[in-house]
């Protein structure tokens, strides 16, 4: 499996990472080496094998439905690049 330039740009768009035209060839070449490595999995017969998504088969714990978190907005927003009146600022999305 080898990535085409169009496929690379589509993945980069999904991942929200700009890949500059000058880097594209190098990025594709190295990604293709990694895809070559993981392609080895295609040859394995896994019929009837249950996928393993987690290291241990444990059940999700439940806790009482109670308020446990205090308001820590100020502390949590201290690291944000741009906030105003307790809100995170982003570029305008609606005209």
């Amino acid at each position: 499996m080898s990535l085409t330039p169009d496929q690379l740009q589509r993945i980069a768009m999904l991942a929200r990472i700009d890949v500059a035209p000058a880097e594209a060839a190098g990025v594709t070449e190295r990604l293709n080496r990694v895809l070559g490595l993981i392609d080895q999995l295609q040859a394995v017969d896994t019929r009837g094998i249950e996928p393993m998504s987690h290291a241990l088969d444990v059940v999700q714990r439940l806790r009482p439905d109670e308020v446990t978190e205090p308001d820590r907005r100020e502390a949590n927003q201290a690291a944000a690049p741009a906030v105003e009146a307790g809100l995170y600022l982003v570029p305008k999305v609606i005209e």
Partner: protein
Amino acid sequence: MLNSSLSALSAALAGRKISAVELTRLCLARIDALNGRLNAFITVDEEHSLAQALVADERRAGRGSPAGPLTGIPIAHKDIFCTRSLRTTCGSKMLADYVSPYDAHVVERLAAAGTVVLGKTNMDEFAMGSSNETSHFGPVRNPWDASRVPGGSSGGSAAAVAARMVPAATGTDTGGSIRQPAALTGVCGLKPTYGVVSRYGMIAFASSLDQGGPIAKSAEDLALLMNAMAGFDARDSTSLQRPAEDYGRELNLPLAGQRIGLPREYFADGVDADVHARVRDAIRWFEGQGAKAVEISLPNTALAVPVYYVVAPAEASSNLSRFDGVRYGHRAKEYADLADMYRRTRAEGFGAEVKRRILVGTYVLSHGYYDAYYLQAQKVRRLIAKDFAEAFARCDLIMGPTSPSTAFPLGAKSDDPVQMYLNDIFTIPAPLAGLPGLSIPCGFDAKGLPVGLQIMGNYFAEAKILGAAHRYQQATDWHARLPKEAPL
């Protein structure tokens, strides 16, 4: 003092032979002398560490909360553990100035035990790497040979302990990030069973694999650290509710009759001859103590690296989507709109290896490829776990090399991701299965570089693994040797 074990330091602190402040100053001076060359620390915290040492001395004097074995012991945290008092960079430009609003569970527990945090150690960016060369803050150098890598991703922690800058440090292991750098720098590192150490406040890479653990100079020291680090935490949904245990309870493990499994695949071609020779020497020592070597097979070993490079990037692509320039971290200066802000922020904030893994993860999870890659990798992961289950029916511990080679020169593998990935062939299987594993030094190659012996055990067999390692370290002194670039 700098080459002493934690229990010796603890006894010296308890017996008033040295104060925590004096010990902290000794370590800070050592860091000051060596860090310019080794680059093991990203942030050193003289002011807070001396303040913590004063509090520890008070506790040792019977004032404040009761002192424990670790009260007054200087440590360092891998810069992946969130700390309120120090920035947490995760080795990335994205978080170069990030200060967390909370402490990680591991940080809280070690603080409660009275340890003194000297600083935060260098690491591969977002723990993605096996050489520490992907750090935004520059590579760490191996104290045994500064032209070589210390391994990764916990390379700063391993190098700091190896160079005796600090007696112990925390690390995290997703595919070998505690054990491989421990092996390459001649120190000891334990990756616990998945779920034993809380992941709360440990910046997530691949959540079904990530596990915190200690790096120190001996197995006995690792046991002391585990007693403080392990424990249930409701804030980590995968934290296990188990009774507290003493990880040092089996340090006098009787070796007679222990069955040591030697996986055929770990003793095949592709491993340095010196590495095999030193590991064989160590196994012969165990046999000399009455342990029985059993040949076993982990037939899917060669598939572990490809499985890992589907599962880990898939989880990483999801985990790292939080770095969007909105809530924390780097934000691009110039952009056209919101989508452009995301794309530029992430292109600027992440390094090449992190971007590569996010792109691989995005690809294997994308429409049309999910079944062929991600689901298939999860099925092969099950086969790998099954290999271990069958092996542990025939043996009590598994031993083999931690890494196929000793420390390699800086730049030797950084241009070919696949060559770098294959270096982790013996450390990736245990986290895929969720099993504990440890690396301890077992000798040197012809170049004088340390070789690591890996000991893996069944789920929750940490105490037994540490016991076997401790027995070996009582009879050998590989773990007490000092690196060439860091004489005392």
